[in-house]
């Protein structure tokens, strides 16, 4: 169908974005003061050892030359070798990507599961007690720093009640799910706040809209009016909000991953930044960027699927 034609053309627009990101990360990581070689060698570093490492990773060459290699590698589907881990960055990322994807997905699902009923409750009782309660409670959700919230949840559910594992990532699927409950709840508590605000506003708008009035005038009970007409019409802005926030969300998982000891890319990234593992920072940033672009693309597809008016 022609409405979906953008599915074919859009990926072309990714290219400049990805290219821009590659340049920026490349420059950015190298602008950070600090030397990967010195980091690797620690306190006992001698100048000759440092020089050797720098030569080994090509860090002693000119910037443009390094960038050239980087792009050349990229064209071959490679991202270089980690200085810290001494293996291919892509391979390294492959071992670390699953928990992050799982965390982001489960957080989004959980947020939606929290946000939709809460927003519905608030919107259908707008201006009344449930609305105020939802709004106040959800505002609190966003105010707590995630690392603090995470620890509190951990102390409550894992230590005091002994219901869930404290931290880590399981091995079997079920085990992984159990391990993901608290981390994704931590993320969801703040993410859902954002969603609730947007959904609630959209729903209130839609409840007042002519579409709803028309449905009521046809004698449709409030339930049908709400779920068949109001909800579909208020989803689009929320989906886009979610997509725009995906970068922020992935950023937020960094902290949550380290609080809950999830072996994901966020932790990898933080360690790489602090140890100036350039290739890894570049690689992870590229992967994150691609993921963000992809999510936005998916959001567009979903938007087009939900709202036939939208043309892209």
């Amino acid at each position: 169908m022609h409405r979906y034609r953008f599915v074919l053309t859009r990926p072309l627009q990714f290219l400049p974005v990805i290219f821009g990101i590659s340049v920026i990360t490349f420059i950015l990581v190298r602008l950070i003061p600090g030397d990967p070689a010195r980091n690797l060698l620690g306190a006992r570093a001698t100048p000759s050892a440092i020089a050797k490492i720098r030569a080994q990773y090509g860090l002693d060459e000119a910037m443009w030359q390094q960038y050239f290699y980087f792009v050349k590698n990229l064209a071959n589907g490679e991202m270089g070798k980690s200085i810290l881990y001494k293996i291919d960055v892509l391979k390294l990322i492959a071992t670390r990507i699953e928990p992050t994807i799982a965390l982001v997905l489960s957080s989004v699902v959980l947020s939606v599961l929290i946000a939709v009923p809460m927003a519905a409750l608030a919107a259908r009782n707008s201006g009344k007690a449930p609305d105020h309660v939802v709004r106040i409670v959800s505002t609190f959700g966003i105010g707590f720093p995630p690392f603090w919230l995470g620890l509190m949840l951990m102390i409550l559910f894992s230590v005091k009640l002994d219901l869930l594992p404290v931290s880590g990532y399981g091995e079997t699927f079920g085990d992984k799910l159990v391990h993901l409950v608290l981390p994704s709840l931590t993320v969801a508590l703040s993410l859902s706040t954002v969603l609730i605000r947007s959904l609630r506003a959209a729903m209130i708008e839609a409840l007042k809209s002519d579409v709803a009035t028309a449905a009521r005038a046809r004698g449709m009970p409030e339930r049908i009016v709400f779920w068949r007409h109001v909800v579909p019409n208020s989803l689009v802005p929320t989906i886009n909000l979610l997509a725009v926030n995906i970068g922020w969300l992935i950023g937020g998982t960094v902290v949550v991953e380290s609080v809950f000891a999830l072996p994901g890319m966020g932790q990898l990234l933080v360690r790489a930044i602090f140890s100036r593992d350039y290739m890894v920072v570049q690689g992870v940033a590229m992967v994150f960027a691609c993921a963000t672009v992809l999510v936005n693309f998916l959001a567009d597809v979903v938007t087009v699927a939900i709202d036939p008016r939208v043309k892209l």
Partner: protein
Amino acid sequence: AGILTIGRREDSTTFDPIKSAQNVDNWVFSNVFEVLVRVDKTGTKLEPGLAESWTVSDDGLTYTFKIRDAKFSDGSPITAEDAAFSLLRIRDHEGSLWSDSYKIVETAEAADPKTLVVKLKTPSAPFLSTLALPNVSVLSKKAVEAGEDAFAELPTASSGAFTVKEWRRGDRVILEKNPNFWQADRVKLDGVEWISVPDDNTRMLNVQAGQLDAAIFVPFSRVEELKKDPNLTVHIDTSTREDHLLINHEHGMLAKKEVRQALDMAIDKKAIVDTVTFGIGTVANSYIPKGSLYHHDANYQYPYDPEKAKAMLAGAGASDLTLNYIVNAGNEVDEQIAVQLQQQFAKAGVTVNLQKVDPSQSWDMLVAGDYDISVMYWTNDILDPDQKTTFVLGHDTNMNYMTRYNSDKVKQLVAAARLELDPAKREAMYVDIQKTAKDDVHWVDLYYSPYLNVSRKNIENFYQNPLGRFFLEDTVKN
């Protein structure tokens, strides 16, 4: 019996011992690989490892090791050839981070399958100690040569108490008992899991909730609380860690000895020990940690006297001294010391500007000399004081550990002590070094602190030796 789960901050980075200088890796290396010569659990003397015995030629240049009858985990015998291969590899391999430390080795050859002969370029008192470093562990030549990269991922043959069963990157390293280990009957555990739990609180909670058997790096602030928990044992093990205040001798007034002495006197080390380490540490008086080889216990210690410090500064013409203090961001202890030192120095009329920078960057700044003072710490990897002394006082390429301290007397003493093979004479030289350095205030010794680890009550013999090694072959899980 049982599998011991240990929580630590970070996951391993590699299994190729020559390619890492990280503590996280060394801990696992020493579980998985065996060295020729070991440091004992008190951290004070060397004992036989894979080398059953050794002799040193009179000129101190030739070491002959008798290799014990032992097997790698894959069943192949451990030979002198493997040992020679490992030693030369760490010296020559382009990816080795340790080449400089083994440049002294002239040749290493297998005279026969059980005899390793190592020739040095010059005599070296600390040489044997350096063989105890986990990075120079004996690797299977065959296994390494079959594929270095694969070996670094998952070693197929190990000489130590455990073999690597699985490595879930970022999460955990899973070790299994090595039935072919030469002391296999000593090993009680079926396996070990080193699990990465970066957040200190989470790690402690894991042990408290019983989901981990042990956790390393207990923050000072948590010791009291954990001690009260009837299910837990807090292990306070002697370490070689020493925290000190680096002083940039090249910056203005800091070049004057009296100024540095005044600074030393302006610091209330006891208060720091109380606040930062919650009384767990002890005030330091020498750069060689207490309990280590050649530590001079009677070394002078500057008394805390802010008034006198103030007067001395005035005398030296440095009444309104302003210092730029580099603080390592993200290091809680560092930040706490900084906050406290700032207030203490203020009492002696010294203004301190804190400059918080990310740790990697602070290295750069220290090396470049862009600082006045900064707190750092050091833990020994080897028994012999030579390594640290060379770095700190030996006037080698790193400007005496970035302090730019300059003393010909000390420089010569350090060089001589390295060659001196008579322990008694050597000790006297080290006492001299410690005294002189203290008098010059090459830096300010702050405090010594132990290793703090915690385990569940049912774990026995879980400890860390002063060089940081975990002897898990002794550990029992009930």
